[in-house]
């Protein structure tokens, strides 16, 4: 009823092969896109700048990471470093007078090249060993940024983003920055959705499931592992630049330290590895739930419902948040995306009980 399947006849291959073959899905995506496009109209400055904008950008980052971790199965614990390379490259390029459009490309390429260098380790090692290799990348990149003053601008410096415009629109107003971030997130989303159903995506999945089995059936694992690192790092680099220009308006090393890597991995895992909607849900969960809980608790304290010290007030949301992560993972180990998927499958055949999978 909600996802009506009867009467939906695909008479052409292009119809069955479209991104969302079921009309109900298309409706929902269209509605969400319309909501996102109209957000500056109905959202206050506060919500748009502090919640919506970082959520979109971190979703794009999670999607870039999930391409590598979820689709290609290559664990990466240095993704914040990849974003840092992009952010610093773009800021130095724009300061040198390069237009932002090209600086973004440059940021992506620089991240991709350096990301591939470290990704080369993936050709020899897997699993936990790969985690160690990418972790090394995180700390090396951090160290280089902090210690090479030509990059960081001094050990205690913050680099402000210069005034730039994108396609002749100055990135001064919040709306301009929001729409650039939205556009990039839509591009990444569509790209990953499409990668999943190309030979490239299938090759990545084959490599993930068993790399030597993939080699036996003729997938060049050397090529595809490197390509996975290249694509993912490219997207991560541009996302880092977008994060710097659209949200922080400045770059410091602490914006891309190890904690951010952990946050990104948590976003990908809580959302559901390899899932696109999981990228959005996971980023939203990790980024926004602590803030919502904190606001709830501090609301309760300020209205006199709870009488606790400030320190406890700051820690209760963390406890709840931790409990929620455990709870969700117990309830559905495959992440928030799987919860969505279960609901959708249930509604597909509702009011009948049997789901087709």
């Amino acid at each position, binding site marked *: 009823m909600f996802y009506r399947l009867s009467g939906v006849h695909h008479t052409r291959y292009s119809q069955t092969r479209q991104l969302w073959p079921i009309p109900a899905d298309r409706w*929902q995506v269209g*509605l*969400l896109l319309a*909501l996102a496009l109209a*957000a500056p109209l109905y*959202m*206050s*400055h*506060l*919500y748009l*700048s*502090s*919640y*919506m904008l*970082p*959520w979109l950008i971190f979703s794009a980052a999670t999607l870039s990471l999930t391409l590598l971790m979820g689709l290609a199965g290559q664990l990466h614990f240095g993704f914040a470093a990849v974003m840092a390379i992009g952010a610093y490259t773009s800021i130095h390029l724009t*300061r040198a007078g390069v237009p932002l459009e090209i600086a973004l490309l440059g940021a992506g390429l620089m991240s991709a090249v350096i990301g591939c260098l470290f990704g080369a380790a993936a050709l020899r090692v897997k699993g936990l060993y790969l985690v160690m290799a990418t972790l090394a990348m995180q700390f090396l990149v951090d160290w280089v940024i*902090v210690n090479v003053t030509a990059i960081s*601008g*001094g*050990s*205690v*410096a*913050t*680099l*402000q983003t*210069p005034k730039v415009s994108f396609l002749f629109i100055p990135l001064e107003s919040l709306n301009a920055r929001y729409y650039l971030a939205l556009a990039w997130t839509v591009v990444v989303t569509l790209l990953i959705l499409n990668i999943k159903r190309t030979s490239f995506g299938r090759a990545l999945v084959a490599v993930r499931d068993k790399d030597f089995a993939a080699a036996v059936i003729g997938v060049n694992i050397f090529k595809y592992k490197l390509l996975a690192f290249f694509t993912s790092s490219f997207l991560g680099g541009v996302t880092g630049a977008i994060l710097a220009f659209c*949200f*922080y*308006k*400045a770059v*410091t*090393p*602490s*914006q891309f330290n190890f*904690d951010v890597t952990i946050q990104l991995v948590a976003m990908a895992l809580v959302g559901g590895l390899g899932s696109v909607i999981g990228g959005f849900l996971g980023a*939203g969960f990790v*980024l*926004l739930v*602590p*803030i*919502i809980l*904190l*606001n*709830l608790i*501090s*609301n*309760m304290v*300020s*209205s006199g*419902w709870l009488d606790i*010290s*400030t*320190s406890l*007030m*700051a*820690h209760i*949301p*963390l406890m709840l948040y931790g409990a929620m992560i455990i709870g969700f993972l117990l309830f559905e180990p495959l992440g928030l995306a799987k919860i969505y998927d279960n609901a959708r499958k249930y509604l597909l055949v509702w009011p009948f009980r049997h789901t087709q999978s």
Partner: protein
Amino acid sequence: MKHTDLALSRRAMLGAAAAASLGATLPTWAQEKAAVQFATLLDFTRVYTFLTDEYSQGQQDYIKLANLEGGIDGHPIKMIIKDHASYPERGIAAYNEAKAAGAVFFDFLSTPVANALMPRCNEDHLPMIAFAHGRADAADGEAFPYVFPSAAIYRSQAALLLKYIDEHEGGLKGKKIAFVHIDSPFGKEPIELLNRVAKTKGFEVKLYPYPVPGTEQAATWSEVRKNRPDKVIIWGAGPGQAVSIRGAVTNGIAPKDIHSVLWLSESDMSAFKGNEVVGVKRVTLVNTGTDNPILKRIVEKVVNAGNGSGDKKRVGWSGYNIGVASMAIAVQAARQAVQKAGAPLTGEKLKAGFEMLKDFNAEGLMPPTTITAKDHQGGGMGIISEWDGKQWTPKSDWASAYQDVVWDLIKEDEAKAKEKK
């Protein structure tokens, strides 16, 4: 509350617009017309935990006292206290929220968050205090009109230690000084200053970085031991400080030769038994203990009246008193601003109020601090105090040191930043 909960869960069910669900949770601060709002958005949970509890307790107790004593010309002060866990993005969100709620004054007590918000505060014309954190060049009021360090920045603190060694410990000339620091931007900040002063005063500085977060320093200290320095300056914060002192003592460095940055608290020192570390010296920017008119009034009117904001035994500790001082400065600035320009208090008026502070010493709690439109550091004064086994006792008078070098470095930083633009 029940109603809010229901509304939240119902909206969350929609799932589609996550932002919509936030609508139910915005803090609904009662808008008393006359209240002045101060936002202290701190890190209670992640990096600065060694300090924040004490510090915030001091701030809250002082504001309670200030409200008992008439607030700001009759306007009560309201505090917005939030945790941002030192994440810049959460700091920005909390800042925007507090701004929307009408806060006119901000404190972040986290270098990454403060650095991310300095340009925003300048844009929005809202003053923030950066008491002993944040970037060094913020001391220049012309470059950062709305940022007020209001106390000796790290380079000034290093200068104070050098001057103390020069004047009280047999001079700097020909000495070997080991600078043992955490390998982070904060740890490296004083290096330039040390090198400059070394040139004019003729001593030798050797650098010994140890890795973040500073819980493992064994290799560094055996290196220090090999070089047999005359004096040691340790530069870290939080758990690393006690590790540094342990490292120094076990490697045969006398406690009296150990000198530390501001961040060396009573709880760090209480980890040592007996007379093991008696004689360690530290920069102090705010007097410790409760032997001060403000602290006495806090104890009498707030803590003993049962309205204290936390553990009673922490009243008078270093971090607590720094919190008190930070709010005392802000309240004084606000009082002057309202007296001069009238209510309601705005960011611009408060900035002017800060710049009217002249020889303000919070009834002896702080050095006489004069903030001008140019100098937001307020003179860079401090004292050197010594650990006597129970508490920090002052060993010098309020003074500043090598401020010319400090300001040269600030100006050079700015010139470099301009070049980059």
